[in-house]
């Protein structure tokens, strides 16, 4: 028997102390938008309700107060403290699971300036509701990433147990429990920032990119053959685009280069294999539009 998967809400973690950054990470701005707002708006495109997870003493903070909040449960925090666990993100996740016991949570840390629709789509479409959580493997150390993950209702008692044993680390929880782990398609999406130097580097990397929440731009490489090569005046290029699919990308390039072939006469390949026109493109994809062939 298969139970229906729980509905998913979003939870943006913004309760951290930002001690290494020496200023509130949630309020850091990228292109005039607070980091918390950017992540909140992006998650809101994927799930029906989104909340910001905060500590009791943060509820009046102006960056957070204009969003729906889930405040860390004082009871849970006291229980955890009594067992020697100091709280942290697990308290926020447990508080959300307690507030809506039938809901699964797309939990996302607010300090992910490169978070993308690609990453959230992958997490939600490849989610396994039969496990306690679905999470990405870190591209840096290969371990699970707890702070961009779907946490299922069934994780609540196991998380309580984890903290009763004095454990605080959500990553160790994922390592030691039955969870689904994914290789991220967007390998940069979970790069977080903790220091002023990392913030400066992220600002630089996002320079010249327009981070609209629904369509984070990405870099693609494109190869041109035959008539398209001649009309584009080049055999390959890399470009930044907000095109979500090969169909969108062809429309964009047709406008730029005046391609005469209608899309209906073409096929498309992504990463050297035939692909659907509606496939979701991800950063780093290599695209070839295939004019009518004439081998033999």
């Amino acid at each position, binding site marked *: 028997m298969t139970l229906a998967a729980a509905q998913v809400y979003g939870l943006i973690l913004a309760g951290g102390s930002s001690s290494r950054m020496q200023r509130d990470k949630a309020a850091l701005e990228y292109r005039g938008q607070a980091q918390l707002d950017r992540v909140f708006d992006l998650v809101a495109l994927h799930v029906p309700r989104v909340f910001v997870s905060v500590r009791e003493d943060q509820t009046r903070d102006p960056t957070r107060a204009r969003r729906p909040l889930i405040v860390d449960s004082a009871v849970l925090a006291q229980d955890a403290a009594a067992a020697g666990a100091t709280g942290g993100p697990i308290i926020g996740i447990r508080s959300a699971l307690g507030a809506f016991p039938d809901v699964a949570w797309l939990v996302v840390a607010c300090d992910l300036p490169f978070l993308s629709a690609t990453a959230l789509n992958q997490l939600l479409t490849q989610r396994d509701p039969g496990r306690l959580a679905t999470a990405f493997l870190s591209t840096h150390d290969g371990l699970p990433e707890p702070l961009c993950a779907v946490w299922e209702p069934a994780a609540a008692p196991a998380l309580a147990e984890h903290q009763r044993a004095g454990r605080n680390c959500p990553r160790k929880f994922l390592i030691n429990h039955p969870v689904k782990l994914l290789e991220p398609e967007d390998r940069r999406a979970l790069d977080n920032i903790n220091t002023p130097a990392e913030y400066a580097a992220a600002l630089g990397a996002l320079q010249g990119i327009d981070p609209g929440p629904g369509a984070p731009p990405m870099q693609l490489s494109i*190869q041109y053959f035959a008539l398209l090569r001649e009309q584009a005046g080049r055999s390959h290029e890399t470009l930044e685009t907000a095109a979500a699919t090969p169909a969108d990308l062809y429309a964009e390039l047709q406008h730029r280069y005046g391609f005469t072939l209608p899309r209906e006469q073409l096929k498309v390949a992504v990463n050297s*294999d035939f692909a659907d026109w509606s496939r979701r493109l991800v950063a780093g994809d290599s695209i*070839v539009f295939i*004019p009518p062939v*004439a081998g033999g």
Partner: protein
Amino acid sequence: MRFRFAETAIDTSAARREVLDSGAGGYVSFEGWVRDHNEGREVTRLEYEAFQALAVKEGDRIVAEALARFPIKHALCIHRVGSLDLTAMAVWVGVSAAHRGEAFAACRFIIDEVKHRLPIWKKEHYRSGDSGWVNCEHCAAAPGHTDHTHHTHHTDHA
């Protein structure tokens, strides 16, 4: 590797040796040649261009399909890229089998699928001095494996 590209003239005697088999009683090969006319225009040479990364994968799949579909021993296809003069060989297919019927059928299957599926393009250069990419829509339609009378190509397998 059951499909490959050649940058220079295809060595058919070497290719033929690759499909030899002591259990084969028959061998069928097909050669596609550059022809001097197409759709009423005088052609002087052809330029072939391919998206090789995908074409090699898809070509291997075609030959694998032939091996699964017909009781044959070996099959190989080699396609040219670059500039080809009249009478030059553009494509070669070789098939060995216990009996001739399967060898003929598999050879026909491979060349038809290759023409239809591989990302290969050709540009015709005309006697009049201009040129054009061959965009023949009936090639992009699914090939029937029985009726090919509608094909009008440069090479002699039309």
